[in-house]
């Protein structure tokens, strides 16, 4: 019995080893294919590094564990193994009987029980296993650039973002926009650069256009204010220069009025522009009477301020925030003939205020009539007006199917001399008899009813 059990145990170990190996090879092969596929997919989509994906090797333990369990479940019973040993040893049932009965003297006559050879035709399984291992190796070793073919390429908007960032910086430096607004725009720009994707470039470009439009709008508004300011400063500067150069030639009244006008213009400009206020000399007590030195200082301050404004506009232009036309307009608005101003004032001061004269002079109006103020009189009367009387055309036949045959004639057809109805417009199709802009065709089957309607007493 002991010898039998030993042989059976040996046979059983050989068989279970082979079954486990066979199952494990199949499971590992399947796991290898799955693992390799997952590795390639994750590297291609998420871009996980291969070292991280090595954690998938834990699945091998699970696969081998499953293989062991299934192999043990597939393992034949001890009785079947004993029967197999009996058969291959040609024991004639003695070994099988030894499981339940005592053989007695037959044990001496029983043939030698030898463990049969187990052969596994596993060539195909090994080939598949090697293929799976190679597949896993390739999935790990293949360069990242080859597996990133499906990854979306980022959208390169660095140049555009830099340009917008510079624009924001300029607007911030020039205090055109608030600091908080500038920060918000910078955050939005950074987010846009991070989210920019080649998969949806339109969205990115639209956002860039929106930001650029916002900056441009802010810049244009600021430039327009600067132009207005430049215009006022130029008027004041021209008047100041005129007073310096031609003040001695002016009459006392005109000089006083001009001084008052200059004082008003300077004060108004100083209220709007802090830089000008800082540059102006102390004019306390000299509202309507400036000394030549004061006029000179006022003129210098106005010119300096105008230059600063022009420099700001130039910076905006450098940052592509405003057009060249605005810069040229600022340059043009900054120039005015101060020498001719005195003569112009002398000629027109009687009929116009000094301020109006300066405005008209500096806006390019010379000695001509210039703009005339609009004058309003009484409304036009309708007395005597009347509508033209015109006869409307006669009614015509709507269509040939409603016509009636009168007869045949060899003579030339008579031509209706009445005016034809209009072919277009609200009265199109209307006839003199109808008098309506709506033309309703009466169908033949309704003609009888219409006829009876008009024939009723």
């Amino acid at each position, binding site marked *: 019995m002991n010898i039998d059990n030993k042989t059976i145990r040996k046979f059983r170990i050989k068989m279970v080893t082979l079954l486990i190996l066979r199952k494990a090879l199949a499971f590992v092969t399947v796991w290898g294919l799955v693992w390799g596929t997952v590795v390639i997919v994750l590297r291609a989509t998420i871009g996980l590094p291969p070292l991280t994906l090595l954690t998938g090797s834990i699945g091998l333990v699970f696969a081998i564990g499953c293989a062991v369990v299934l192999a043990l479940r597939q393992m*034949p019973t001890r009785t079947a193994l004993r*029967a197999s040993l*009996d058969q291959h040893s040609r024991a*004639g049932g003695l070994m099988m*009987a030894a499981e339940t*009965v005592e053989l007695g003297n*037959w044990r001496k*006559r029983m043939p030698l029980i030898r463990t049969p050879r*187990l052969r596994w035709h596993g060539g195909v399984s090994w080939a598949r296993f090697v293929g799976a291992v190679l597949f896993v190796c390739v999935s790990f070793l293949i360069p990242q650039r080859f597996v990133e073919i499906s990854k979306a390429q980022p959208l390169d908007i660095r140049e555009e973002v830099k340009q917008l960032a510079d624009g924001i910086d300029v607007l911030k430096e020039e205090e055109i926009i608030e600091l908080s607004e500038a920060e918000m725009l910078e955050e939005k720009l950074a987010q846009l650069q991070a989210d920019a994707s080649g998969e949806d470039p339109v969205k990115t470009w639209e956002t860039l256009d929106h930001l650029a439009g916002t900056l441009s709008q802010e810049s244009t508004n600021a430039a327009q204010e600067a132009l207005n300011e430049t215009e006022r400063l130029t008027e004041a500067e021209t008047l100041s220069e005129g007073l310096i150069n031609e003040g001695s030639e002016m009459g006392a009244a005109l000089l006083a009025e001009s001084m008052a006008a200059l004082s008003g213009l300077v004060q108004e400009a100083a209220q709007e522009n802090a830089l000008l206020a800082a540059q102006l000399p102390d004019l306390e007590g000299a509202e309507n009477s400036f000394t030549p030195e004061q006029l000179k200082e006022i003129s210098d301050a106005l010119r300096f301020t105008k230059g600063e404004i022009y420099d700001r506009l130039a910076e905006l232009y450098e940052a592509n925030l405003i057009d060249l036309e605005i810069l040229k307009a600022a340059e043009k608005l900054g120039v005015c003939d101060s020498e001719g101003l005195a003569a112009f004032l002398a000629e027109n001061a009687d009929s116009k205020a000094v301020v109006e004269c300066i405005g008209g002079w500096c806006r390019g109006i010379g000695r001509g009539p210039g703009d005339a103020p609009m004058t309003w009189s009484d409304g036009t009367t309708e007395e005597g007006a009347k509508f033209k009387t015109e006869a409307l055309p006669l009614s015509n036949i709507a269509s040939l199917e409603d016509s009636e045959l009168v007869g045949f004639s060899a003579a030339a057809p008579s031509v209706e001399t009445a005016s034809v109805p209009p072919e277009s417009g609200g009265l199109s199709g209307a006839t003199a008899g109808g008098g309506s802009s709506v033309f309703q065709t009466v169908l033949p089957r309704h003609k009888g009813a219409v006829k009876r309607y008009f024939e009723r007493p």
Partner: protein
Amino acid sequence: MQDNIQSENLLQPEELNPAVELTEKVLAELNRVLLGRSALHRMVLIGILSQGHILLEGVPGVGKTALVKALGQLLRLDFNRVQFTPDLMPGDIVGTHILQQTPEGEREMTFQAGPVFTNILLADEINRASPKTQSALLEAMQERSVTLLGNTRTLPNPFFVLASQNPIELEGTYPLPEAQLDRFLFKLIVPHADVDVLDDIISTRRRGEPPVPTWSMDAEQLRQLFDVMGRIFLPKPVSRYISRLTAATHPDAPEATEEVKQYVTYAASPRAAIAMAEASRASALLSGRPTVGFEDVKAVASAVLNHRVILNYQARFDGVDTFTVVDTLLALLDETDLNLPDDLEIRSA
């Protein structure tokens, strides 16, 4: 009949050897009397030891009757031979009641036993008798008794029927129904003798008459043989193999082969499994072993199954017979039921 319950103690060599010697003597004497039939003699002896009936199929003149005669002489058993003809009546087989006058002058119905009341009955050309007569014999085979006019008479013990069937001259014959064929333990094919055997027969036998057996077994020895038969151990894997083999003859069985699925109409019955187990025990006894091995089952499986597995017309068209189907089944069915994968193979060391 011996008890089928397995003995806890295995038959020891000293108990088995006398029975084996007896069977060897019987076989040796049969081989001496009838030349060139050793395999057939072995199968017939297996059938006798299994107490089963045997259907012998072969052309006339191949020694069927001589075999039965020699067997009767060797076993020292009564022997009757009936030539079956179409006009043979059941009463001619089982016997009948005839009106006889007693010594006292009275008349009464007396039972006149038929030839079935013997130990060995040779039913020659059984397929020539009418189904009614066949049925009477087959009932006696199954019940081992005869009932006439309400009286049941037990047949002698042991009782064997060795029927012969002529495969040629089928005109005017009544083929045995499949259900009745099932009652025969074996269907054995008696082949033609080869040249050497024929030469031996005509050179050693005057007018072909076989010699008289020089040894015969007595009733006690036959009973001892049956006792030993009952103690031959049938291991569980072998009985399992017999069951699987019988089940696999069913076309819808999980282990049925492609030939079975394609050609078999009616499969083997449980009686076939019982017969195979008994015959395997006898085979083991003849091999001098106290236990049945897979080789014993394989040795008797074809003789047990070939007349119980009924093939369809497709098999006839394809030239496939039951021997082919059974041999394929034996070759493909794993005896040990290891259920190993196809790519695993066990080879003897």
